[in-house]
């Protein structure tokens, strides 16, 4: 199997799947035509991410990177979460096949899009 055990675990038992009905920030990246869509929902209190959920259409790596990224930003301040990079996501998963690295980029972008959405709604942009 080309995926690490951590990727398989995150794919098989994804954390934080779902939607937040009254999310403070929502970010969506990718397109169905490309085969990947990631949607992130953030609940924010005092600039801290107190809840995060995701929905993903995509391959095993897309699900795993979404899942692990939500774990990595939970409880973080927005400033800290904005510093999350795709390389950090890949490292956390113990590596990804080269052709799947773009999934980690989407995870990073989805989080940044959700934070941007929050900031724009709160006049912080």
């Amino acid at each position, binding site marked *: 199997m080309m*995926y690490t055990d951590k990727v398989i675990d995150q*794919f098989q038992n994804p954390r934080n799947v779902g939607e937040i009905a009254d999310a403070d920030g929502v970010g969506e990246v990718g397109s169905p*035509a*490309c*085969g990947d869509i990631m949607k992130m929902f953030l609940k924010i209190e005092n600039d801290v991410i107190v809840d995060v959920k995701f929905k993903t259409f*995509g391959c095993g790596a*897309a699900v795993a990177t979404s899942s692990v990224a939500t774990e990595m930003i939970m409880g973080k301040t927005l400033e800290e979460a904005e510093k999350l990079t795709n390389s950090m996501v890949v490292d956390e998963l113990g590596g990804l096949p080269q*052709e*799947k690295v773009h999934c980690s980029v989407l995870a990073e972008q989805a989080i940044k899009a959700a934070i941007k959405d929050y900031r724009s709604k709160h006049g912080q942009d």
Partner: protein
Amino acid sequence: MQRRYFDYAATTPLDKEVLAAMIPHLEENFGNPSSVYSYGREAKKAIDEARDKVAHAIGADPKEVYFTSGGTESDNWAIIGTAYAKKKKGNHIITTSVEHHAVLHTCKYLEKQGFEVTYLPVDEYGMVDPKTVEENIKDNTILISVMFANNEIGTIQPIAEIGKIAKDRGVLFHTDAVQALGSVKIDVNELNVDLLSISSHKIYGPKGIGALYIRKGVKIDNLIHGGGQEKKKRAGTENTPAIVGFAKACELAVENLESYAQRSAKLRDRLIHGILESIPEVRLNGHPTQRLPGNVNVSIKYIEGESILLSLDLIGIAASSGSACTSGALDPSHVLLAIGLSHEIAHGSLRFSIGKYTTDEEVDFVLEKLPTIIQRLRDMSPLYNS
């Protein structure tokens, strides 16, 4: 964990009878068929007998059968060999948009060498219209190459009809019959083909061996140069054990063709109907009736193929997908796009191919587990609103 294999279109396990036929040629009968002493003569005899069996499987004369390394080489040889041999007559080749990459990439290569290639469209079932073939023949057309049966969606083309058109118009006709061998009756004369590619590992034979049928009188250039093997048409010391194994696999395939096709079609139909009945928003790809007896190809909306494959693999089911994520490419299967599927639907395709070791219990297992997997992935998908 018990494993269940549903990817016979990709490759098949070696039949025990095939292995038994090969062993003596891996051990004591190891001679080089080109050698004059008894070791060589024994190997040569085994190859001659094997050629008879392979020829019998496709209704050919043994002199018209040339062993190759497999389907890809056969396709390359048929197309490049014809193109180079006929370039004074013309430079136009007709093929289809749903061919295997062994044909498509070869045609692309020839385009770079100055040849002109017409890629015919197919209908929503992946079927080529013989009239379209005829309409596209030009004075400079030197070859028509249309696959016998599609490896992804299982559609069986009207080869005899296309062959008749090619024959009437004096154009050479090649068919890639790699997926058809062992599943559908093949008779090169009834089909009016001049060149036909087959491969061993799709019919429970060893990998790395195949054949190209070249009709008597048809001249094509050599692809592999070197010694005088295969009547000076394909150089390289013959792989005697593989050739013997391929022949045995052909013998068994022909012997059991009817019972295999009936049994597979029954399992196939049960799997198709079971999936369509238990999972909403699923599309059957390929022709509803003119399809390989072992092929099931469906597109499951709102989810992506690789994630289905991975979920199936985690419970021991091996299947295949036309998803781009499986291959690391950007676009999903060219075949699924050619039959008119949108990218997002094509991304969610799944192929189960049934073989002679597939059981009712295995089909039941897929039908029991697949709906749960699909629901789990759909629940995770932002495209799906339950």
